[in-house]
């Protein structure tokens, strides 16, 4: 029987698929539900310093091949998130996603997440629609290195860095994260996007632009992982448009040690994880891959 267990550095996973940040992971109970649905881990909603309502509605719409959202990082803030983590961490592995606006905020947030029992922290340096956060910080290699190294110096748990595809220097940014001591790179976040309502002659989202996710972005994500695999030596986590075993296999063969699923929870429900696990194992069996590690990066050879 082919084995589905894998590891992202020191973080071991029973199954290779995790819930991507921002999907059914703002409350303790919903994170538990996703773990029970077969996710190897859940990456929490990106949590900031203070309670935040995010952008006004409309902040989401379906488009051909995916979704465009500009939630604007809503969340209860790091202090209150303790209660949610207390419910979720006894049930499985939770990666604490954090969205600071500067180095010191990232340090505080990471320290809290570690204290709450997160198995790793994921630095959101890639959200395309939250002013002063995410991608606004994550497209400057020097700043990325600074944030990562400072966070690394403050926590013992592994530090993952989630990067944006909205740049032509993704490899340099990933290298900066590696130089800063990052334990893994997660790619990709959403592609900066816009939907216009012709009837109203206006952008549909209240924030005007948002991020595209879903099946449409998968080839972009696969390419990003393929490129990063050649450049960095730390583990990679693939995310972007994964709906089925085939998508997952593409990311793993491009070089990912594990993957995350987000938008497919809309189309397939939380059950998407158990289905991918079963089908991926079947494929590995038939094509002679006895482990995720044996399949990782093979498309690069």
């Amino acid at each position, binding site marked *: 029987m082919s084995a589905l267990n894998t590891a992202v550095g020191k973080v071991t996973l029973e199954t290779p698929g995790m819930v991507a940040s921002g999907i059914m992971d*703002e409350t303790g109970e*919903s994170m538990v539900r996703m773990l029970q649905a077969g996710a190897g881990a859940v990456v929490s909603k990106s949590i900031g310093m203070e309670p935040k309502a995010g952008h*006004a509605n409309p*902040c*989401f719409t379906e488009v051909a091949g995916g979704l465009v*959202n500009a939630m604007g990082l809503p969340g209860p803030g790091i202090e209150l998130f303790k209660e949610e983590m207390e419910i979720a961490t006894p049930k499985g592995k939770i990666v604490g996603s954090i969205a600071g606006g500067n180095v010191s905020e990232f340090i505080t947030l990471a320290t809290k997440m570690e204290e709450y029992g997160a198995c790793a922290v994921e630095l959101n340096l890639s959200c395309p629609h939250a002013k002063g956060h995410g991608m606004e910080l994550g497209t400057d290699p020097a700043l990325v290195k600074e944030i990562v190294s400072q966070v690394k110096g403050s926590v013992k748990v592994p530090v993952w860095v989630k990067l944006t595809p909205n740049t032509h220097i993704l490899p340099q940014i990933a290298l900066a994260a590696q130089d800063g001591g990052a334990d893994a790179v997660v790619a990709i976040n959403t592609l900066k996007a816009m939907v216009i309502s012709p009837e*109203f002659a206006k952008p549909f989202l209240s924030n005007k632009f948002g991020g595209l996710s879903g099946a449409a972005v998968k080839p972009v994500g696969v390419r990003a992982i393929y490129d990063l695999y050649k450049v960095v030596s730390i583990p990679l986590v693939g995310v972007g448009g994964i709906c089925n075993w085939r998508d997952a296999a593409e990311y793993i063969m491009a070089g990912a040690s594990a993957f995350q699923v987000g938008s497919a929870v*809309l189309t397939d429900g939380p059950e998407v994880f158990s289905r991918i696990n079963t089908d991926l194992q079947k494929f590995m069996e038939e094509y002679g891959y006895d482990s995720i590690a044996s399949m990782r990066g093979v498309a690069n050879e």
Partner: protein
Amino acid sequence: MSDHVRIISVTENNYDTKTLEFVTDDEARPGQFYMIWCPGMEEIPMSISKVDGRTRSISVKRIGPDTERIHSLKEGDVLGIRGPYGNGYDLTPGRKYLIIGGGIGTASIMPAVEASGADTIIGARSERDIVLRDRAEKAASNVWYSTDDGSFGFHGNAVQLFREKQAENHYDCVIACGPEVMLYFLHKACVELDVDCQLSLERHMKCGAGVCGCCVMDGSRVCRDGPVFTRDQVSQLKDFGVQKRDECGRIVKFRKG
């Protein structure tokens, strides 16, 4: 999916509620909802109050700036709709249903009344708060009313009236939408009397489509796993009648008693 529709009629139901009709090619079912938007408002979820061929309606009570904006729309104006979303009511034939609408919750149950012709209770604070009465009387086998102030029909609340009617008619299943406090006591009564029920619940929504998790009650997404939950599902929801989450995801306790 996302669509833009032209309003074909606007009806004033009473002093604070209007019904807007439009035509669309979706396959909406009773109990589902749309996310409604036009410039000048935040997008909000609205129960579908009519499913008649291709004709749909929403019935909107004026409670704040967004519903005020919807009230300003006229016949011929354009409305943005996303959906239909949610699971809707299960109207399996052969079961004896009692349908209960409380206040503006009557909008959500009306398509189920029209699809089934089942006995119906409409509860409201006062006679002037009763909406969609004409449609209920046309479609339902029997319609009974309760008002808190006794100005029309039974003097009392819809749950008290339900207990009377259940004792007389032995329904198999209750379908209801209304304020959570009404649904809370209705659910209690259904458990006590061992009657099945389907309750349409409400929480703050953002995506409406089951992705973001903003509207969860425990781990259940009101927008996607609901908004209609069965008696047993509701029994498992620790948040029901106790607490909700605000737009930041913070827990807000309901007032006790």
